[in-house]
């Protein structure tokens, strides 16, 4: 155990279709829930930034009436701030308007202040001031493939951003378009989808156009990535130059979630769904599946989960924390949220009957930041 329970605590931010809830816990088992914040606005993206000596919660909020915007809180939700002119706005000349913020990704500890965002319409943004102002990545925005990228059911968005420790290698995943890679910190981009099937297209092995649902990097193996696709679970060991299936051993190869361990090589989690006709946990039995050998084998994890569950888990409605052992969290479209303090071996229910869970993010914070427990 590398962390002192007396000095640290845990925050779980839960973005739903009708607002944000925050849960805190001293032990990742007993949770205190507060909220809603931003009632009647959806919260599809959350970033918890614990760098630079503070805990900043960034949320992408979207009102059906009043549009999307980014708020941040430096006091665990006691107060929220919004840059007057908006943190993310399309510049003049693009003739585009922000529809939804799908991803807020604080960069590495070595680059404090840098925060990435992935948005709809398909776009990637970078902030160097802790998420208060973002700049559009023009290399991807002006990419010649843009007119051929499509929209999944939820919209056309860049939803995954993976940046390597050097900051030079950046992978972005978009639905639908597939995985794009930059080797120059985001200046230029090339599709990298070799080996990933797009069975729904006339050519099932196109250069781009795949419906990737989520990608994540292995924390300890340089160049290794994992992808959960619209059918298909894959691993790459060469920075996405090629992908190979690691779906064998899973009850279904469809799903939205892909999580990787914060430190350990070869460990990843998925939450399979049966598709395309059903879009439910296989046989109505919800389970997380973990690999500890980079996808060679999978272990079913369902201790503490309900016997029957017919709701899906969306791509960002799952997260890991940075503790040891790693915590695993996810929420369903039925409004249930589960937490595991032991890498998925056992789950406890954090909340139930919330609106559809769109995003969860968890972090280890100083216990001094939390309100006093009764």
């Amino acid at each position, binding site marked *: 155990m590398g962390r002192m329970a007396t000095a640290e605590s845990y925050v779980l931010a839960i973005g739903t279709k009708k607002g944000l809830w925050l849960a805190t816990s001293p032990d990742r088992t007993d949770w205190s829930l507060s909220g809603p914040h931003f009632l009647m606005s959806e919260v599809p993206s959350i970033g918890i930034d614990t760098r630079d000596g503070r805990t900043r919660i960034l949320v992408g909020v979207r009102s059906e*009436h009043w549009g999307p915007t980014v708020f941040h809180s430096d006091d665990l939700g006691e107060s929220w701030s*919004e840059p*007057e*002119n908006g943190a993310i706005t399309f510049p003049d000349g693009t003739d*585009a*308007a922000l529809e939804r913020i799908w991803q807020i990704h604080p960069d590495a500890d070595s680059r404090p202040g840098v925060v990435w965002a992935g948005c709809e319409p398909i776009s990637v943004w970078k902030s160097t001031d802790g998420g208060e102002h973002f700049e559009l990545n023009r290399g991807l925005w002006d990419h010649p493939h843009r007119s051929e990228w499509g929209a999944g059911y939820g919209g056309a968005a860049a939803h995954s951003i993976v940046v390597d420790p050097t900051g030079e290698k950046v992978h972005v995943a978009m639905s639908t378009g597939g995985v794009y890679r930059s080797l120059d910190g985001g200046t230029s981009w090339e599709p990298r989808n070799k080996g990933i099937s797009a069975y729904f297209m006339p050519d099932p092995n196109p250069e781009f156009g795949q419906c990737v649902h989520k990608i994540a990097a292995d924390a300890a193996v340089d160049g290794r990535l994992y992808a959960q696709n619209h059918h298909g679970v894959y691993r790459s060991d060469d920075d996405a130059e090629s992908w190979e299936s690691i779906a064998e051993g899973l009850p279904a190869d469809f799903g939205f979630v892909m999580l990787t361990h914060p430190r350990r090589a070869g460990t990843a989690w998925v939450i399979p769904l049966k598709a395309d006709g059903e879009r439910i946990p296989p046989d109505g039995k919800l389970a997380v599946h973990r690999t500890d050998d980079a996808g060679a084998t999978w272990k079913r994890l369902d201790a503490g989960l309900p016997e029957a569950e017919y709701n899906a888990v969306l791509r960002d409605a799952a997260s890991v924390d940075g503790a040891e052992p790693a915590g695993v969290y996810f929420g369903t479209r039925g409004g249930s949220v589960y937490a595991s303090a032991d890498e998925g071996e056992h789950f406890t229910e954090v909340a139930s009957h919330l609106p559809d869970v769109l995003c969860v993010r968890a972090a280890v914070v100083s216990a001094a930041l939390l309100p006093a427990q009764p």
Partner: protein
Amino acid sequence: MNSAMISGDSMPADSAISVVLPSVLQPLAGGQSILTAPAEAAVTVEWLLDAVTGDYPALSRRLRDETGAVRRYVNIYVNGNEIRRLQGLVTAVVPGQEVLIIQSVAGG
């Protein structure tokens, strides 16, 4: 543009146009329910929105997106008619008139 006057300023009714905000947006206008712009002649709704939201950029973003388009579920009424049934943002408004902003009954 910062020519908008706040409600309560002394201004003859026929030399100003008022914009009435729904309660949910009033915190973004310093708590005001009505914003008023001076106007000696007919102006467009677009000009009026620029005028009254010039000091309140967060309010402006709630009403229109970056392209200037009125958000889908924001309704703007001139003389009781929603501007989409008139001439949209170039709909004329004359001094003394009141413009109502009302959110659509949408959602679930």
